[in-house]
């Protein structure tokens, strides 16, 4: 396990934050590849560590939006509760596939999002 430089992590976090504010595309889409390419994280570690960061960013955003009265709790539950079950399945599935397969699948998802950004 390589210990990443805090300066690198700060830079990645800043980039992810700026991108998510600009495009509404969550920070994880930037954090995961940067942890893989810049910090030499293993694929499963990159995904897990990204989730930790995403939770902090989302929590900060929710507090700001909630103060303005923009958060709809019922709607959040409607999509969030099934998503919790999905996350349980997704993390479980992740442990059973190889890091290489995971990286390929992530690259495929990224390409899909890229096309959506370019066309949309």
């Amino acid at each position, binding site marked *: 396990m390589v210990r990443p430089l805090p300066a690198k992590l700060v830079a990645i*976090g800043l980039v992810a934050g700026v991108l998510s504010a600009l495009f509404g595309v969550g920070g994880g889409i930037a954090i995961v590849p940067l942890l893989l390419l810049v910090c030499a994280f*293993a694929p499963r570690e990159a995904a897990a560590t990204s*989730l930790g960061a*995403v939770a902090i960013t989302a929590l900060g955003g*929710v507090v700001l939006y909630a103060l303005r009265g923009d958060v709809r709790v019922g709607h959040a539950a409607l999509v969030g509760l099934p998503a919790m079950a999905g*996350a349980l399945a997704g993390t*479980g599935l992740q442990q059973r596939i190889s890091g290489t397969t995971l*990286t390929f699948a992530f690259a495929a998802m*990224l390409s899909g999002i*890229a096309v959506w950004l370019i066309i949309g």
Partner: protein
Amino acid sequence: MSNGTIALGLSLGLVAGVLSGLFGVGGGILFVPVLVALGLGQVEASATSLLAIVPTAGVGIWRQARYGNLRVRPSLILGIASLAGVAAGVKIATSLPEHTLRRLFGVLLLGVAAQLALRAARSRHKVEPA
């Protein structure tokens, strides 16, 4: 909200959660369009999506910590730096043409995806790291 849209919200929520757990992303990319389809405005949808992300990521974090994949200190540094980035991003967003930025970011992501695929292809010849 009709039964159909509720069913759509529930099933796409589930898919977003699977993607979140599998790839380490929040799932907002699916949450936001679903919430807009359910009748929320763009800002409300973004705000509500963030609330849905918190417990979704929470479940993922809990499981990943048990599997031994979570690195707590890097997570905290990334998350806190990201909050600062969001504040800066909001200011940039209001001063630049969004359409051009989206396309540039899309092209950048394609490049990153190609880079990742190339690495994964090369690492097939080496021993799988954990």
